[in-house]
């Protein structure tokens, strides 16, 4: 800081902004400069602890801040100029909003004197981002910057987290004011006044758990956000309750834990969805009964009682009516609930659970159709690629140190099915918005937050091309990120829907791609093309250990499908299974 000798120095608004970021413990800003934010960029050199990552598109800046937050649990920060810089952030903010990710976005704005006059690069970004931020602010005076920014951080990380945008006019950045970080401390966060986990409701929940014969825990993103992974597992173990996960809850419990069932929903495994349909009690922890996990609501888990532990009261009874709602932070609620259960309900053992036996029988049944168990027929399948990346990391003992960042599409679902996550925050994926182009920038954010972890991008050939420009960012930042492009020549998930629902009318789903290895080479990034299963593990190994970015173009089976699949309108148990005519199911002797 320019004037650090003075406890409360007089600084420009731009300096106050950066000093406040530093004070909040921020070390990395993902951003892109432009006229209305230039005073802040001009002041950057005075703040050596703040590292600025220059992105190639502001959408990526928001995804990077998002990936940073998902990987670390800390607030990510991105920055853009007014007008087009600010509007480019919108998709990234929406992605963070729907997945409850804490980020603070800072945008420059035209001078307060010309606000509302359609000045050059003026856009009403607080108006535009109203529905895609948890809250936003317009700041027009240097005196307000520190307090507003600190409040923005508090809002972003408190309660149900989310993105907050702070729009700062250029004159506010240029004016001077006294900087007093401590005086700018916000009032304590106002907890949502409808939070309640009354003892009567907790007792009801206890009774329901005691009576249940076929309970299932539904673990959502809230388990990770609340940091309640251990508590959930402890409850599950003590009472032998199997755990089904949402996409964003997949890394909440170790996949290889005997009680972990895996992902539920549209592409959930049959035993998971069947367990939910047959359950007599659902314990929904930090999840919101999204349509992707419930299927047809009128057919959803018809015979179960439902307990919903959720921090956001507006989520309760939104899609599914529940019998007991415990509104609050999951970890706190479980700290009230679990001891009561321990008193009244002697822990069950796995051996005497008929329910678990039934579920496991379903598992064996499903594995016959599982692509992973079929003999090698010389083709390369995305599921095999993902499974082998997992095997490689597991064999190297790096599973707990590996973060997978996926894009959106078939590969995302295969990742969810075949990469067995062992540690919280080891899967980063856009769940609620399903934003293609998310993976590469989010991986950059994750790698900046966790430089010692191995970060893999798993992206489709379509989504990868949406933000492929960030390849030069990882080179400029010298970030050893590993990239697996699952290249099937199609917008695969779209193709699969067209195959299933639109009579194989492949309208606009075949996609031409550049030679990804040459594209990487043009950036000075090494790479390899892999089209045989035997080459997956060796190349994954090279990528992981090279200490440099590495791209692998996995040329996989073009028309493979993700199964099981629940088509729109069907119940969770009404799954499409891998078709029998699938060449994969023809064993060599059949041919």
């Amino acid at each position: 800081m320019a004037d650090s000798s003075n406890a409360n120095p007089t600084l420009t608004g731009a300096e106050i902004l950066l000093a406040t970021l530093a004070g909040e413990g921020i070390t990395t800003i993902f951003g892109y400069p432009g006229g209305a934010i230039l005073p802040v960029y001009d002041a950057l050199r005075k703040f050596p602890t703040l590292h600025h990552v220059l992105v190639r598109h502001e959408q990526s800046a928001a995804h990077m801040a998002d990936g940073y937050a998902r990987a670390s649990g800390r607030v990510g920060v991105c920055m853009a100029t007014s007008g087009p810089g600010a509007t480019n952030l919108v998709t990234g903010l929406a992605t963070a909003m729907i997945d409850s990710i804490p980020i603070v976005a800072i945008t420059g704005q035209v001078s307060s004197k010309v606000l509302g006059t359609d000045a050059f690069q003026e856009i009403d970004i607080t108006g535009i981002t109203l529905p895609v931020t948890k809250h936003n602010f317009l700041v027009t005076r240097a005196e307000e910057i520190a307090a507003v920014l600190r409040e923005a951080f508090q809002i972003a990380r408190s309660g149900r987290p989310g993105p907050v945008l702070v729009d700062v006019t250029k004159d506010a950045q240029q004016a001077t004011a006294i900087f007093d970080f401590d005086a700018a401390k916000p009032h304590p966060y106002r907890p949502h006044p409808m939070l309640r986990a009354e003892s009567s409701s907790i007792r009801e929940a206890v009774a329901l758990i005691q009576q249940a014969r076929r309970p299932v825990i539904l673990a959502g993103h809230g388990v990770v956000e609340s940091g309640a992974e251990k508590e959930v597992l402890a409850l599950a173990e003590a009472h032998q309750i199997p755990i089904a996960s949402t996409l964003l809850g997949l890394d909440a419990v170790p996949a290889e834990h005997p009680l972990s069932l895996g992902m539920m929903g549209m592409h959930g495994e049959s035993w998971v969805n069947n367990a939910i349909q047959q359950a007599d009690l659902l314990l929904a922890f930090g999840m919101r009964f999204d349509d992707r996990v419930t299927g047809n609501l009128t057919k959803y888990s018809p015979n179960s009682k439902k307990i919903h532990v959720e921090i956001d009261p507006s989520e309760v009874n939104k899609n599914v009516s529940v019998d007991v709602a415990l509104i609050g932070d999951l970890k706190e609620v479980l700290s009230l609930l679990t001891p009561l259960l321990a008193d009244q309900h002697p822990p069950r053992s796995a051996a005497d659970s008929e329910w678990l036996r039934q579920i496991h029988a379903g598992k064996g049944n499903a594995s016959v159709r599982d692509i992973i168990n079929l003999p090698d027929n010389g083709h390369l399948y995305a599921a095999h690629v993902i499974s082998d990346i997992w095997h490689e990391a597991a064999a190297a003992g790096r599973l707990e140190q590996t973060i997978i960042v996926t894009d959106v599409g078939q590969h995302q679902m295969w990742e969810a099915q075949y990469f067995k996550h062992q540690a919280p925050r080891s899967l980063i994926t856009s769940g609620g918005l399903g934003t293609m182009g998310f993976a590469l920038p989010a991986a950059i954010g994750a790698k900046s937050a966790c430089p010692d972890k191995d970060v893999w991008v798993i992206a489709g050939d379509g989504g990868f091309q949406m933000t492929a420009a960030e390849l030069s960012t990882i080179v400029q930042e010298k970030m050893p990120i590993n990239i697996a492009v699952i290249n099937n020549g199609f917008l695969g998930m779209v193709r699969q829907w067209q195959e299933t629902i639109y009579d194989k009318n492949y309208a606009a789903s075949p996609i031409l791609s550049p030679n990804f290895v040459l594209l990487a080479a043009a950036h000075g990034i090494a790479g390899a093309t892999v089209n045989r299963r035997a080459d997956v593990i060796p190349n994954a190994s090279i990528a992981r250990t090279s200490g440099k970015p590495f791209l692998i173009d996995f040329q996989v089976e073009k028309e493979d499908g993700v199964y099981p699949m629940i088509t729109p309108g069907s119940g969770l148990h009404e799954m499409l299974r891998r078709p029998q005519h699938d060449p994969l199911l023809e064993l060599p002797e059949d041919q």
Partner: protein
Amino acid sequence: MLHTFVALVQDRPGVLTRVASLFRRLNINIVSLTVGESERPDTSRMTIVCDAPENAAHRIRASLYKLETTIGVDEVNRADAVVRELCLIKVGAGPNHPHGLHSRSQIFELSQVFRARVVDLAPESIMLEMTGSASKIEGLLQVLRESGYTILEVSRTGRMAMRRGHHTSRVLQALGTRQGQNTSEFPDPDPDALREDETLPGIFEE
């Protein structure tokens, strides 16, 4: 059905947009919305009347609370609240009116019955001011029309509501508003705890 919410919100630019935008997002029509200063500095009180399914109330209230600019929300129904609306009515009345000058005295009489007040007299019109429940206002309008008067202009504020009793509302009670108290202090965490007999309605319960 009609739901009436009384919300205490920060008095600063953009707050009304946030509230209105929330109803737009939920695809719920706002029947009326009134805003004005409250008894607390920098704080407005809004009465929002909206038309939504019976079981939507919980979600609306919870969502209103999620706005960072909201301080308190109360849902009131007719039984436990005083609900009032202000209406200005301009009626054609003068020498050229079919009833001639006689029309004026008739309007005066009518307005007395309805406890409306004459607030402006012009050569060709009379302006009435009336406060009351929506049905009373509609009653006056209907009588005027049926008596053959031309209603030239109507302006209504929409409903305002206040919970009955010595504590103005559950919200205020919970906020513990005392004279001179620091208003920015964050409120009691549980001002809206459900009563024992209250349940959380679900969308699919009918």
